């Protein structure tokens, strides 16, 4: 077999097409492929109805080649089917590096795929590059809840990396760009016992989705109870944004878990994040590393959140926030 070559990105599907992480993988993958002097390719695992659209979409991201595995069992995200298909695609594509998203799907898929192939994976990377000296993939990933970072080397071939969403610049689409298509005939007959999805319940708050919001108003332990979240909702509505919360506020039952922002909650990439009564534990900061401007309102001037903030207010939220809301409303009416 020839030496492994190139960078392969695993295309992720959303309910409507290609998930946004795919453009971020293509952006990071293109730079890595350039450093290696090799090609960027992509893997699409799907049913025959959806794959043409996905192939076109990923083609616009500037990949050279798309490996396509089509099978009825790949219609939804049944992880065992996707694992088996990707294992076969990777064996045929023979890449040096495989990139996935550390998304809800990718965080389960990545480690299992790497282990199945006896390879290593760098999880939740915020930077990737090529270590010329060791001739291996190197990655930087937050550790200890984000209190520090680790530079790691993935010494296997292929080397796997799962990229943190919103940590890499998405590559812009090029209209009319297409990729060479390589069909991979996959066999999914030897899949063992699987976990089946039997029910799904939605608990999404009304309004703008937290992940998509340009402005997020977020509350923590300092709010002292569920009641203050009403003002936060009012403020978010006035700003056209969404409401989030720290894990402490969710664990206390003040708001449901879909509000949680942080290492084990959602990662957001808002332009403006207003943290109210949030101390700024590193685990929380991990979820807002993609935020452009953080505003901290906290009565404790020593709180860690001020070290991350662009603007800070030391004061009692119950006085600062209503006045701030009033000012926002007046500005809007002018």
């Amino acid at each position, binding site marked *: 077999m020839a030496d492994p070559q190139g960078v392969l990105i695993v295309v992720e599907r959303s309910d409507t097409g290609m998930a946004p992480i795919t453009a971020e993988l293509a952006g990071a993958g293109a730079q890595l492929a350039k450093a290696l002097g090799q090609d960027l390719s992509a893997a699409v695992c799907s049913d025959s109805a959806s794959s043409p659209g996905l192939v076109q979409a990923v083609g616009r991201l500037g990949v050279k080649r798309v490996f396509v595995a089509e099978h009825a069992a790949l219609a939804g995200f049944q992880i065992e089917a996707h694992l088996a298909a990707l294992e076969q695609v990777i064996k045929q594509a023979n890449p040096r590096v495989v990139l996935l998203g550390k998304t*809800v799907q990718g965080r389960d898929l990545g*480690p299992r795929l790497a282990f199945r192939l006896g390879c290593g994976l760098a*999880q939740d990377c915020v930077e990737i590059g090529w270590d010329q000296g060791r001739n291996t993939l190197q990655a930087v990933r937050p550790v200890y809840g984000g209190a520090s970072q680790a530079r790691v080397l993935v010494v296997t071939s292929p080397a796997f990396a799962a990229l943190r969403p919103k940590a890499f610049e998405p590559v812009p689409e090029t209209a009319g760009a297409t990729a060479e298509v390589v069909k991979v005939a996959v066999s999914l007959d030897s899949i063992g*016992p*699987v976990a089946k999805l*039997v029910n799904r319940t*939605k608990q999404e708050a009304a309004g703008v989705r937290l992940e998509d919001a340009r402005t997020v108003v977020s509350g923590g332990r300092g709010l002292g109870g569920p009641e203050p979240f009403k003002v936060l909702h009012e403020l978010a509505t006035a700003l056209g944004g969404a409401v989030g919360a720290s894990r402490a506020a969710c664990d206390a039952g003040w708001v449901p878990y879909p509000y949680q922002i942080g290492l084990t909650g959602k990662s957001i990439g808002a332009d403006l994040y207003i943290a109210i009564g949030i101390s700024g534990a590193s685990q929380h900061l991990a979820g807002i590393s993609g935020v452009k401007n953080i505003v901290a309102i906290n009565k404790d001037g020593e709180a860690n959140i001020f070290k991350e903030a662009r*603007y*800070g207010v030391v004061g009692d939220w119950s006085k600062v926030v209503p006045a701030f809301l009033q000012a926002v409303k007046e500005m809007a009416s002018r």
Partner: protein
Amino acid sequence: MPVNIIVTAKQVIDPETPASALKVDAQGKRMETPPNVPPVINGFDENAVEAALRLKDAQGGKVTVISVGKSFVLDVIKKPLSMGCDELILIQDDNAPTFDAYATAQVLAAAIKKVGQWDLVLCGRQASDFDQAQVPLGLAELLKVPCVTIAQKVEVKNGQVTVQRVAPDGAEVMEAPLPALVTISNELGQPRYPTLRGIMAASRKQPTQWKLADLGLNASELAPRVEVAQVFIPAKQKVVEMIGGDNDEEKGWNLARKLREAKLI
């Protein structure tokens, strides 16, 4: 139906340690706390212990805890016994190289195979030190069993495990045949506190100690796939601009003006 459960647990530095007290160790490979701050059991692993004990309370069975690590502090690592677990197996080889996720999963898989009888493996969703969330998934691969991650509720009935898992916008219910592996998240609820009776019972129990040699693993299975080159605290460049005012209300107004000037609202 009584359930035979294995829980994996990791001893970690206390994540509640203030950032100012944490430092990178002399080798630059991990973080360390001051000597007077004892380690703890990874929080999500305590959630996994709680999930196991709820199943045992409801329908009987046995809970065996397995931990791979170095420099175990017995008072810390025995906590699952005082919470009500039946057995603790420690795999400690202070001369062994530091394991990556792949090697750790290999050791755990070999230990679970040595235990022999089991229906369900419960793991914390990730460890609070390296935050990888890789070992449980790798373990499921090595054991060749179905895997459901990030559970907030676990039930066992008729040879099946039913798992309510946390989804970004709600919950999903998954079903898998036993044997299976499930990772547990904090949404399951607070782990129980050890009772005095539990602590007394645990003090009389000794953990089973295994060495790597007892598990028959070879060097290539334990060779690192991922090497930690360096752990570092990233430099911070942000300088906060504090918004003043004669009172808190005025600060609120001044903040709005500032954000308007910066075209952020």
